[in-house]
């Protein structure tokens, strides 16, 4: 695996994680080791191999469209960091 082009700032940004300065150096070094090790899989020729997403076959499942018990709004919002009138309060996203 080409670790020299591993851009930790870009990855942290994509992952929505802010890295402190000391974390930055520390993770970078670890990723170099880990990605170097993961490079093992490049040794194999897998051109003719199908990818496995699930070990056992997984099919779409259909069921009757029927009404069942659901959580009450109070139960749904109990864990929300901020709520008002049975709605999640979120930061402003449009000006």
């Amino acid at each position, binding site marked *: 695996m080409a670790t020299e082009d591993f851009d930790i700032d*870009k990855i942290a940004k994509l992952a929505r*994680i802010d890295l402190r300065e000391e974390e930055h150096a520390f993770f970078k070094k670890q990723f170099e080791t880990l990605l170097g090790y993961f490079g093992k*899989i*490049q040794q194999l020729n897998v051109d003719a191999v199908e*990818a496995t997403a699930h070990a056992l076959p997984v099919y779409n499942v259909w*069921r009757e469209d029927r009404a069942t018990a659901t959580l009450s709004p109070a139960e749904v919002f109990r*864990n929300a960091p901020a709520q008002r009138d049975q709605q999640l309060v979120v930061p402003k996203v449009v000006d």
Partner: protein
Amino acid sequence: MKSQLYQLSATELSQLLQSKKTSSEEVTRSFIENTERLEGKLHSFISYDPEYTLSQARASDQRRREGKVRGPLDGIPVSIKDIISEKDQPLTCGSRFMKDYRSPYDATVIEKLKAQGAVLWGRLNLDEFAMGSSTEHSAFQITHNPWDLASVPGGSSGGCGAAIAAQQTPFALGSDTGGSIRQPAAFCGICGLKPTYGRVSRYGLTAFASSLDQIGPMAKCVEDTALLFQAIAGYDESDSTSLSEEIPHYTQALQASPSPKRIGIPKEYFPQGMDTEVREAVESAIAFYQKQGHEIVEVTLPHTEYAIAVYYIVATAEASSNLARFDGIRYTHRSPHSNAIDVYFRSRSEGFGEEVKRRIMLGTYVLSSGYYEAQYIRAQKVRTLIRQDFLKAFETVDVLLTPTSPTTAFKIGAKIEDPLAMYLNDIYTVSANLAGIPGISIPCGFSKKNLPIGLQVLGQFFQEAELLQLAYVFESSHDFHVRSAPLS
């Protein structure tokens, strides 16, 4: 000499309850008292609520008086890894993010346990979001191994392993994504079963890597493992990956002796330079099975050396996607900022611990544009080869015998700063998750330092009964599972 209720197995307790020689309240109090006696040294539990648990025990006793017993689990305490939803109880997942979260609903496995009268007893410690092999990555506490307080109990279900070995609970539900049931079972000298992928509903299990995660039982002995597994196995319409294969009678299956089997020994699991004590213990288990009339055959799983790399690419990719839901908007922790992007960044940076951040970033990388094909898709292709290795081996043998872990429990702090060393510890367990097959770990010996050694039996899809039978035959002729940890 067993003089306390907490020293008995769940099966023994169930018999005592059935013959009315004790009550669920007495049984439950015994475990609560033993927990309170030891918890200051072990830190197995993230939370427990004796009053809530005792009220379930009293309800069970009431049912028994009225002749309305719901089965062999009625009145028996069961503890839960703190990543499985239990209505109105805390669900921290070992994470600061979820510190104040309470489950709004029951996981299917919890619903099943409640329907069978089990007494839910406490929430057990784990590596944050089940990511780790030592339970040192819990945001709240490090759990100590009752066989040696300076050593880890394994992980990520380390709280389960320690609590069972220390007799704080008779048995527990854990989850296994790459060995998280089997490795702590091995480190703590107990039994742990990872079922076939799809055998047990994942509904209500906080997702780490959805194509690998399975809930399974951990217990002092094989009989109890079968008892708890029986209670949770089966199709669930709330989990579209659960499968509707028939469920055998696992506890009854133990009574029959297994027919002669062809037992495969994968040579890649016994490399040159492996830990001598682990090798000797597993080899003597192999000799035992041979003496019992089973045929021992050397087999090869040639892609074993790629398993760790494949596992940590696939699992981190799935984790980065599953954990995207923790954005500071819906679940408990939100960093106070006026700008939505700042809320995402700061909530995640404050809420997640180091190992989780590491895995999210690795997963983000292998899924990112330009690397997706070369990393993620390629890993999934090698996953196919690993799966095919097992299918091929199972053409000639019925089960595989291996060590569960390359070593006994390591010291707290020994691998925490070296993630690759920590990951390599999972070499014997991750492949079963990648292939989807079941595996069980039972104690098969002790090191000179008196640390337990685990034997793993891997089987074909849905052949858990066979694994339990073979484990039970071994256990019945040995006393490793009845030895008490120094702190218990």
